[in-house]
């Protein structure tokens, strides 16, 4: 680790700290950082997790919550084609979620650290507008990405190890922007009969397309982030249950700042990206179906020409079946249409055009899960087959 040369300069020290903090280089250093930071939190008495989650001393207005989602994942390529840097490595990851509420004020943060990344994924301040409605400000997960809104970075919560490609985060080569820095209204309407609706809308600074989509970072904002909008409307037959159907939509102005050799060829300045889609998450006794389909339209603005458009469609369907207590089998199929010839997708480092997977998950006390997944994916011009194994759990 390089120590800052002029460490007495506080500003430089701060910059050095954040560079270390938000660096994307693969290193165990990220994990070490997090252990240093979480140790004082764990020993802080009022949020100790040692007392079976009993915080009886909190005042009526002040409440806080600390959650740790941990996982160890190994991905073994079964054919010679390997397009990711982290294949056949055991990757530990820790997702810390901390929230507190005081009167009408809310604070929520989610920090992720692994050997491959370390950053604040969400950092949001909120104001309660009703029993179950809030106005958030900060870096948030876009509500129009259903998978992300449902599971965020808590891998224990999702049954499969991999996420659908349209739900992947920007730094995992996801094709849609998943983070936005701005405002979000999240409102729930309970009809008294048990059913309800959820409405969420957000606007703020979205991402710049460089060698991948780069969302607005709180610690290293960069330039050129333009506005994005999105919304989601969902119907829930049981307001507190997981069954939900809904529609999603988003619009982004994406500034393009490509490496010079690509930029010369494409002459791209910006892309207007609009997306509309549907989703459903439904449980029928032991069977759960989780599905989404989206239509993405990209309008390119080039130096000389303006207004070229292209359309792509993506869909996935995941089925989960609990065939015995704690045992769940699952499978997912992902398909894309008009993705192979897409100029937009050709600018992303990786494309998963189609994917099929099957897997098995075993849950054991307390809140631990072992998951085995076999997946086969069609990338740009090659097929990749992987065997993945993951141990995930949540504390407390």
């Amino acid at each position, binding site marked *: 680790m390089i120590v800052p040369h002029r460490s007495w300069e506080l500003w430089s020290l701060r910059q050095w700290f954040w560079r270390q903090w938000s660096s994307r280089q693969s290193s165990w250093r990220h994990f070490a950082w997090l252990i240093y930071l979480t140790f004082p939190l764990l020993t802080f008495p009022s949020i100790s997790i040692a007392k079976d*989650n009993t915080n009886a001393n909190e005042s009526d207005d002040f409440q806080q919550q600390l959650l740790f989602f941990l996982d160890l994942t190994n991905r073994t390529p079964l054919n010679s084609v390997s397009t990711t840097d982290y294949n056949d490595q055991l990757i530990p990851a820790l997702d810390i979620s901390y929230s507190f*509420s005081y009167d009408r004020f809310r604070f*929520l943060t989610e920090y992720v650290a692994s050997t491959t990344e370390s950053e604040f994924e969400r950092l949001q301040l909120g104001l309660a507008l009703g*029993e*179950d409605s809030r106005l958030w400000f900060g870096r948030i997960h876009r509500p129009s990405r259903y998978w992300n809104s449902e599971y965020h970075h808590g891998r224990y919560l999702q049954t499969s190890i991999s996420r659908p490609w349209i739900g992947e985060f920007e730094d995992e080569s996801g094709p849609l922007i998943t983070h936005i820095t701005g405002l979000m209204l999240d409102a729930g309407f309970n009809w008294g009969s048990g059913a309800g609706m959820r409405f969420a809308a957000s606007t703020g600074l979205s991402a710049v397309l460089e060698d991948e989509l780069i969302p607005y970072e709180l610690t290293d904002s960069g330039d050129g982030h333009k506005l994005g909008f999105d919304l989601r409307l969902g119907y829930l037959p049981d307001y*507190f*249950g997981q069954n939900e159907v809904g529609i999603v939509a988003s619009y982004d102005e994406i500034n393009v700042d490509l490496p010079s050799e690509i930029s010369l060829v494409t002459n791209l300045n910006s892309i207007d990206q609009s997306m509309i889609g549907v989703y459903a998450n439904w449980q029928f006794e032991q069977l759960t179906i989780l599905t989404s389909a989206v239509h993405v339209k990209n309008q390119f603005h080039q130096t000389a020409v303006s207004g070229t458009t292209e359309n792509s469609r993506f869909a996935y369907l995941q089925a989960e079946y609990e065939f015995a207590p704690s045992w769940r089998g699952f499978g997912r199929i992902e398909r894309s249409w008009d993705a192979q010839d897409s100029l937009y997708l050709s600018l992303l480092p990786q494309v998963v055009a189609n994917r099929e997977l099957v897997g098995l998950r075993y849950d054991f006390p307390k809140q631990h899960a072992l998951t085995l997944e076999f997946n086969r994916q069609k990338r740009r011009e090659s097929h990749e087959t992987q065997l993945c194994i993951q141990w995930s759990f949540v504390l407390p």
Partner: protein
Amino acid sequence: MSQQLRKVCCLLVLYISASTVFAEHEVVLVTSTKSCLKNLSSLDIRKAFFGVPITRCGQRVRAVHSNYDTLLKKIFLQNVVSMSEDTYQRRLLHFALQAGRRLPDRVSNLNELEEILGKNANTIAVIWKKDAQDRSDKIRVVKVLWKHD
């Protein structure tokens, strides 16, 4: 006269023992005797156990899980939250991640529950009626949630 008196005594003994037996098979929502909570709708009780911040009598209602009895837990899952344990735990974690909602506290014995109820007046819990009757000086029944038919 003495026969009538004997009959009345027998009936009284039967009534007392029967009510004790049935009380064992009733599940109730309780709070502290210091709380002003009068009644809560089924929806409000669900909201509290899913961490939705509801306010009654000017104070936030907080739910506590009674983890001291397996049958009680099953009745709670079936009749209060209407979900399997696994689904309920996942929903709680989802709401904590999504909206920063606090997970309900858990107690593993009645003394712990009594202590928590004493500290926070608007705290609610689901326990056997018999256990509430044994601690009637500190715990008050708000509502009967389940009765054995």
